[in-house]
């Protein structure tokens, strides 16, 4: 089987040279970018430079350095806004997708849901888009329903009509599955949900790093993503919210920076997005994330997506052809991102992952924070290989060859 066309679209061999960790470990085949991505030199450098040259309290000091630090932080906000087609006042910096979803759950859910209301999720959600709603339901009495996951790894949208009633006040779905790679038709779901008067939240943790995003075209009210999965630092992420919805939200965390006026016994609150950014923000991380976005935009998000699509098609083709003992999950088609979950015979995923690690292949094994999804798949755990901009076709080849050796090692026990 020939190498995919992607080598001409994005040049991962060249890109790898931008990543100090990958250069330092030339033998490492890093296939766990869906968990966290590696960081290019420019991102590491801009974070370091922020502390060396610019570090100051933002939105606080009257001195020049503080003004410059504040400008850098707000410039990062504008960069992130442009990245997803949003207005800068709609960008809330948070720690990660998990915090973003909790923000919506606490600042909207706790104040707007009651015992007669329903939240509609899906059976493929990450725990970050399940547990916050469980907490909200425990306190409000609201109920959770879920769009079922079909055997082909796609949502069964036929069920949407019967699930969506006027009782549903909020629909929260993941854009791309962190396990199956499924690209969900969120625009279609959002349209149906909003027609019923429900708010729509999109978990973009696995879409923002990999494909062009236009939040207006998605038709959602909220879109959440993490910086560390898209070449940026840990501890920084974004919640985008439609401004007119953000205005109606109660504060999330209280403290400095999110207020208008404070008295001993009460306070009034700032407008969005400051209302949701209590305390000293992660300025260096925000600046680092903006640099990561610029790096991705230089590559072109459409090209990044195409590169991963072609890598996944190449890898699935080889697995199908050469490793009949491997069972993969997830849809086969254009609605599939660069993630391959699989099991090898009846060998447990952790044992396969440990064996692959001995061949220099870094993959994740387990339930990938999606236990309901794995229950539906009927397996307790899967091994997951995931790709990104620096993943080469040779990485896929080395992964396949190592997997063959692992199969041979466990041959008598498959």
């Amino acid at each position: 089987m020939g190498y995919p066309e992607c080598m001409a679209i994005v040049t991962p061999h060249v890109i790898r040279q931008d990543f100090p960790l990958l250069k330092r470990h030339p033998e490492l085949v890093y296939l766990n970018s869906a968990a966290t991505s590696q960081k290019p030199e420019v991102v590491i450098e801009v974070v370091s430079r922020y502390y060396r040259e610019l570090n100051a309290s933002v939105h606080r000091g009257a001195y020049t350095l503080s003004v410059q630090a504040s400008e850098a932080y707000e410039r990062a906000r504008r960069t992130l806004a442009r990245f997803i087609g949003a207005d800068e006042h709609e960008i809330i910096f948070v720690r990660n997708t998990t915090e973003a979803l909790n923000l919506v759950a606490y600042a909207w859910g706790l104040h707007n849901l009651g015992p007669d209301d329903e939240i509609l999720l899906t059976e493929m959600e990450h725990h970050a888009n399940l547990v916050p709603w469980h907490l909200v339901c425990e306190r409000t009495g609201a109920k959770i329903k879920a769009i079922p996951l079909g055997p082909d790894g796609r949502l069964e949208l036929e069920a949407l009509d019967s699930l969506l009633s006027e009782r549903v006040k909020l629909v929260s779905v993941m854009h791309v599955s962190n396990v199956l790679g499924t690209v969900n038709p969120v625009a279609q779901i959002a349209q149906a949900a909003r027609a019923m008067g429900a708010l729509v939240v999109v978990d973009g943790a696995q879409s923002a790093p990999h494909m062009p995003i236009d939040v207006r075209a998605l038709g959602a009210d909220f879109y959440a993503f993490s910086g560390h999965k898209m070449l940026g630092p840990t501890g920084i992420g974004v919640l985008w919210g439609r401004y007119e919805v953000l205005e109606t939200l109660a504060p999330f965390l209280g403290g400095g920076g999110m207020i208008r006026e404070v008295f001993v016994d009460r306070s009034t609150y700032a407008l969005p997005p400051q209302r949701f950014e209590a305390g000293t923000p992660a300025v260096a991380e925000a600046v680092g994330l903006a640099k990561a976005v610029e790096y991705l935009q230089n590559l072109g998000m459409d090209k990044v997506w195409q590169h991963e699509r072609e890598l996944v098609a190449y890898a699935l083709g080889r697995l199908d052809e050469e490793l009949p003992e491997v069972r993969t999950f997830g849809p086969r088609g254009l609605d599939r991102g660069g993630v391959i979950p699989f099991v090898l015979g009846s060998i447990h995923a952790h044992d396969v992952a440990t064996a692959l690690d001995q061949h220099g292949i870094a993959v994740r094994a387990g339930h990938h924070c999606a236990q309901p999804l794995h229950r539906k798949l009927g397996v307790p755990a899967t091994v997951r290989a995931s790709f990104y901009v620096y993943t080469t076709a040779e990485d896929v080849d080395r992964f396949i060859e190592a997997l063959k050796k692992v199969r041979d090692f466990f041959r008598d026990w498959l």
Partner: protein
Amino acid sequence: MFLMSLLDELYKEIILRHYKSPRNYGPLETANLQVVGDNPSCGDQVELLIQTEGERIVDLRFRGQGCAISQASASLMTDLVKGKTWAEALELERKFKDMILEGAPPAPELGELAALSGVHKLAARVKCATLAWNALEQAARQAGVVLAEA
């Protein structure tokens, strides 16, 4: 060939045999103690069903799901501690954990559990090997056994 030898060391035949055909697996009608140990980050689970008479574990069985290391460790552990007193079982736990956590040479009393000694070299899998033993310790607490200071 160092790399493959580590795999050979970890997945000895006895481990894979206990994984595929576990001993003492299934329900235990006469159990008077029941504990579930789990590793939430990976989803592995070992449930212990224990029948005690006074200070003695007269019978025990387990149920569970997980990797070869966690399930083989549970299978071997149940074989070893059946018939032992709590004090003897907890002494075996200490020797097992010395081997897994500290890399101590396997104590002779551990018998076939010595096959798991290679886990010490793989920090990521230590929690798999100790899962069933942690459940046993939990059962001891539940039984009111006073545990020695760690």
